[in-house]
């Protein structure tokens, strides 16, 4: 099943409440996905560096190693903000690749959740409420964010199998459905040099979109071509640095509903995920059409 939520704010005055709204939307979708949950949040701070969000099953140990040694080894300033099993590392863009390699050497079990100027991804196994609480998602601010509650079908219930999947700088994707050609597409993408870490179908969808955009496609074009190259059921919500996009497969049996006001564009697997948003009763509410791409940008 799975539940998807997303919120793109047009009104800057709501940015401080982004995490609060997303948390409430996410928890409403618990019945659709009680296995695990995740949120990608795009913050509004104009920081100059890049953030790497990492995750560890032994955060005390691993994050202390990274705190004490990473900056010295890569010879640059690194900020470390620990949030439960996750930590956000801040540094200059040109040190990111080296930092990832060094993190892999120092702490092989640390996983990279996302890399980007604005994106932070928090995801764990457990009920959406517990996941949101442990990271205090409701206190986070930002310009837009997407969330997912998972009911696993194609791969195991693990942190790495939870959504969102990030396969490009400031990019992420959440998925309701299941892809049937993910194995062959994974092989093709890997041959093209794309790094795909899991056996999960959704990660292949995310990597496909990132690959297309890396090849020069816009988000609109990448989502359009996914309708040709991906086989299976999907409602995708894809986040980028400045917005998000939506596409549903031509059969469109995975639900999706959107609401737009002067203040925001909201996405939910069901209408009840949207009912507590401000002035929802005055919003334009519609179901995204099958095989049709929608994109919103700041």
């Amino acid at each position, binding site marked *: 099943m799975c539940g998807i939520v997303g919120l793109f704010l047009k009104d800057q005055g709501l940015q401080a409440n982004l995490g609060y709204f997303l948390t409430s939307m996410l928890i409403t979708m618990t019945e659709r996905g009680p296995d695990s949950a995740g949120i990608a949040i795009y913050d509004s701070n104009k920081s100059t560096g890049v953030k790497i969000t990492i995750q560890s099953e032994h955060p005390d140990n691993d994050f202390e190693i990274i705190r004490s040694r990473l900056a010295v080894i890569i010879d640059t300033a690194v900020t470390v903000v620990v949030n439960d099993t996750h930590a956000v590392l801040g540094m200059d863009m040109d040190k990111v690749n080296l930092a990832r390699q060094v993190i892999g050497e120092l702490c092989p079990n640390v996983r990279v959740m996302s890399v980007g100027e604005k994106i932070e991804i928090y995801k764990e196994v457990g009920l959406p409420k517990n996941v949101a609480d442990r990271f205090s998602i409701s206190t986070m601010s930002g310009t837009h964010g997407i969330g997912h509650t998972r009911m696993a079908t194609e791969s195991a219930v693990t942190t790495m199998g939870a959504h969102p999947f990030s396969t490009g700088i400031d990019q992420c994707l959440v998925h309701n459905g299941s892809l049937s050609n993910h194995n062959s597409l994974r092989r093709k993408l890997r041959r093209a040099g794309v790094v795909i870490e899991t056996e999960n179908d959704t990660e292949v969808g995310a990597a496909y979109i990132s690959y297309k955009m890396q090849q020069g496609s816009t988000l609109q074009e990448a989502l359009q071509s996914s309708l040709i190259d991906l086989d299976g059921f999907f409602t995708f919500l894809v986040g980028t640095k400045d917005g998000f996009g939506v596409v549903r497969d031509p059969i*469109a*049996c995975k*639900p999706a509903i959107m609401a737009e006001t002067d203040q925001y564009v909201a996405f939910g697997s069901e209408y009840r995920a949207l*009912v507590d948003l401000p002035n929802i009763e005055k919003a334009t509410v519609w179901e995204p059409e099958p095989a049709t791409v929608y994109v919103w940008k700041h």
Partner: protein
Amino acid sequence: MQIIDLENKSLRELNAKLQAQSSSASQKVWEVLNPKGGHAIATGLNAPIDVTIKGSTGYYLAGMNQLATVRVEGSVGPGVAENMMSGCVIVEGDASQYAGATGNGGLLVVKGNASSRCGISMKGIDIVVFGNIGHMSAFMGQSGNLVVCGSAGDALGDSLYEAKLFVRGSVKSLGADCVKKEMRPEHLIILEELLKKSGSNAKPKEFRRYGSARKLYNFNIDNAY
């Protein structure tokens, strides 16, 4: 009139009260507040009562309905009036996927648009949609009438049995074995009755009729290997 506010009553309490009317039917008129997109509201009713939902609902509103009239002052999620046996369900807004699926009887009126698979496997229900319907509507429809005052999406009436389809606007494409058919006087009479009952101003003569070519579900020796 009885008013139930889902802000402080559970769905189970609401449905138990409404379903209990089947033995007594002591209260004829009900109003439900704060549905907030909830699922399975007013399902399994079996009494000639009148229920108005003040807002939008989620999955399976008024499923398995018998005798009751359920009105929604908002939009509904997937599977509204699924497997309805009799009675009437009126949606003032839009309906999501598979509205009226597998319905055996009764009348479903959607005053906005209905999404994909409207009337899928319909078995005798009458459905009137004031707006448009999505793709794969009336798939494997066996009996009943689907009236669309707007346009129909792709693959209308795919693998149709004997349901009758009436569309006023355009049809994006017809499904396998669904064909345009002659509008005979008996069809105009059906349309006139259904449009009147549902409160539509559309005129019967503005519609075209579609039905099964009957080539798919009858045994045909030429299809055998």
